[in-house]
């Protein structure tokens, strides 16, 4: 891996950019510098097709002039380029609109935090892929893997603002992304995919999060059929699909949605919004989440905090800007969802299901502001009388994510850490499951 620039100089680059913005006429400025090195290997069943290395060096300036905001971002760190970007950001701000919520963060600086390898274990990674190809040929010869990647990313993030706040952090991670489908003569299955990140290399690709289970599910999916009839039943979100539910809920808790005034959780702080078995914590500070961050783009340090505890909404996700618009306490806009494990295995949840589906993946339209959703159940299975009956196709689900939080009937006991979130299976009732 070729390092062409001094990665450790990020705070100096950011501080120079803050000064350049002030000299260009900014009242205040904040700058995020990201230096990123990637080593990525692309492979399929038989070929290791490409090694891709990239270096990125981005400076993002936000300036305030008379309370109006302007931004500019560039690749590179030369003083000429930064001076030009600072002038462009100031020009944008001068054309802008004053907003008292536009302020730089005033708080404590932090010392450098580092996590993970400084260099990729290149040959170990390629050898791991070659072993995985052999494993797939032996155990899953009817599964086609395509455009899958195993990567190492080393990222330095540095921050400075005109209030004298500085931060710097380096986080490195290994990530596996696998895309696959089953093929047996003219029979084919839906595409499926999963990915995971880890601070250390994966011993075997198949050990990355849920891959081995999903490969087995794909082998069981060659003869899908629609659910027998339209009905209202249970949806069992697997760890791979549960972020469909959780991310939609989290979006509705964010500051910008609260500013719009359209969130179904607008007035829900301290109130019950979910079944009491549900507890979700934001844990961006945990070293178990290499894809998280120790500070956000405003310079706020990340902090762990409860979001939903025993079904009660404890915190909205209010970033620095939104906090001033809403008159609320700010928290860093860095999120790593950690769901408390429940007391039933996925197999137990299925055994306790009268009628519903195990949802492997949701292919759906964007939920609306009220969190109404509808979409196709992909990589999914029909469940009746506590047993998986068959894989499904041409089956749709529709409901409301906010209502589903209230109708949760089981939380899975097997937590999966994907590197950004750690989640479990969640089963909820009252979903319309339809066929054509």
């Amino acid at each position, binding site marked *: 891996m070729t390092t062409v620039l001094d990665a450790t100089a990020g705070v100096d680059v950011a501080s120079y950019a803050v000064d350049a913005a002030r000299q260009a006429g900014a009242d205040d400025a904040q700058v995020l510098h990201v230096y990123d090195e990637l080593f990525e290997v692309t492979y399929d069943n038989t070929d290791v097709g490409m090694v891709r290395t990239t270096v990125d060096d981005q400076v993002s300036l936000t300036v305030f002039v008379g309370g109006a905001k302007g931004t500019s971002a560039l690749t590179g760190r030369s003083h000429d380029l930064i001076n030009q970007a600072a002038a462009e950001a100031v020009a944008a701000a001068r054309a802008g609109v004053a907003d008292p919520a536009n302020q730089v963060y005033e708080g404590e600086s932090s010392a450098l935090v580092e996590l993970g390898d400084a260099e990729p274990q290149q040959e170990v990674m390629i050898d791991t892929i070659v072993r995985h190809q052999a494993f797939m040929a032996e155990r899953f010869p009817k599964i086609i893997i395509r455009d899958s990647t195993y990567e190492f990313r080393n990222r330095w993030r540095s921050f400075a603002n005109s209030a004298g706040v500085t931060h710097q952090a380096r986080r490195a991670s290994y990530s596996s992304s696998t895309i696959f489908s089953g093929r047996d003569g003219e029979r084919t299955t839906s595409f499926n995919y999963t990915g995971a990140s880890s601070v250390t290399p994966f011993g075997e690709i198949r050990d990355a999060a849920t891959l081995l289970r999903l490969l087995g599910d794909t082998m069981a999916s060659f003869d899908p059929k629609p659910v027998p009839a339209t009905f209202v039943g249970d949806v069992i979100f697997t760890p791979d699909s549960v972020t469909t539910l959780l991310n939609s809920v989290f979006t509705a808790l964010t500051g910008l949605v609260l500013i719009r005034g359209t969130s179904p959780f607008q007035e829900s702080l301290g109130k019950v919004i979910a079944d009491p078995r549900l507890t979700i914590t934001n844990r961006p500070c945990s070293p178990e989440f290499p894809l998280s961050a120790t500070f956000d783009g405003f310079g706020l340090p990340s902090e762990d905090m409860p979001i939903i505890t025993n079904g009660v909404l404890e915190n909205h996700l209010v970033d620095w800007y939104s906090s001033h618009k809403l008159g609320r306490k700010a928290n860093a806009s860095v999120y790593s969802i950690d769901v408390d494990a429940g007391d039933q295995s996925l197999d137990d949840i299925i055994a306790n299901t009268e009628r519903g589906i195990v949802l492997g993946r949701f292919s759906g*339209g964007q939920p609306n502001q009220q969190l109404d959703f509808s979409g196709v159940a992909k990589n999914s299975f029909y469940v009746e009388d506590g047993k998986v009956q068959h894989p499904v*196709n041409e089956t749709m689900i529709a409901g409301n994510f906010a209502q589903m939080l209230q109708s949760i009937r089981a939380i899975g006991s097997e937590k999966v850490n994907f590197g950004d979130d750690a989640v479990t299976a969640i089963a909820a009732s009252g979903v319309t499951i339809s066929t054509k």
Partner: protein
Amino acid sequence: MLDQLERYASHLDHYTELRLHTNHTKTIALVGGNVVSNGASSRGGVSARTYDDRAFGFASFPSMSDDAIPGALKSAGGNTALLQRRAPMGKGDLPVGTVGKGVFDYHSTKAPLTDAEQLDAVRAVDEYLRATYPDLANIDVNLSFLAMEKGLATSAGALTYSYIPRTILTVRLAFMADDGAVEVYDSFGGFGDPQEHLTDVSEFFPDLDELYKRVREKADGVFAKPGEHDVIMHSRLAGILAHEAIGHTCEADLVLGGSIAGDHVGEMVASEKVTLVDYAERGPDGNGGIAIHVDDEGVECRDVTIIENGVLKTFLHNKETAREFDVEPTGNARAYAFDDEPLVRMRNTSIAPGTDTLDEMIASVDHGYYLTRPTNGQADGTSEFMFGIGMGYEIENGKITRAIRDTTISGVAFDMLKTVTHVSDELTWGKGGMCGKKQMIPVGMGGPAVKCRITIGGRS
């Protein structure tokens, strides 16, 4: 940019693509009247990709200096050598295709708008809506400009420069219905620099008035009935239908990955009324959503007729898949950013217009739906697809009745396309369109209105 590339072009002895690439963006976002985004970015650098009979090596650096370019070439070669040592394959040479050359510069000839003029245009739209329709619960106005500027030289002799701009103004309205907020959106602008679209935004006001009517109708709307129905898809949906239902299924890399399309070349997969083309350049009428003349492997782009009168003809190729299928590459290899490798991507994808009129088509439906505005979409190797519906209406006895709330439609493309009975006589291109497949990339999606049977998700 071309001068710089020419200095290196004659020294590219092994298979090499050398690309200088910058994405220029401008974003202004008003959320509830607040300017939450106001700025520009310029993200660029050099990339090199090499191939030597066994594997690709790719490397990129965030600079176009005369230090960075040799560095990228050397690193790419080193990456190929690493694979040769650890995982040799030996797959043979890549086909050359028709070598592309030329300058394709779509800079506007009009004077550029200043930062203040662009922000004023966005605020004018916001202020018009705020003053005219004070009962709206929320108004978001978002300006998104992207220009992809690329220079490419290859060892096969390609040498080309392009500047491809697109300006999209998206307006999203929320109205508080009895059961909560409902939203609709519309997009304005399209291909070209901001000065091509934002000089007089009052031209958009009649369409904004219509958009307000739509959100009021939707607030009083009903949930669609789940199940299979007769459906008229507005031309706005036909583009995403072409893209999601067929286009992805016929990308040759996905065919190699198991897509069911691989089994059906030469077969009737659709009604004979359906002809579907992925167009190069700016499409058949010069109004496609993007422009592409030479792809990022240096191949001259050509139109690809995927389905002709219902028969599946061929797939979309880059050089690697063209070698696997023993055909010529079609110019579908595209990369989004300087540090991205080219992938098989669609360009301007459209169902060809037919001879029916929209009014006749609606009148032919006893009970069904008229779907007018899509949201997102996804495809699958089984040809099962979905896309979200942001606006639509019930049809009863040939007449449009109540609006419906957000829903999703799905189907198996190679079954659903056989149910197409009507194709309207107009070709309309969407204003925007981004496709995600490892990388995001702008695409053009267009088509006529289509009548078919399709499955709707719903709760009633």
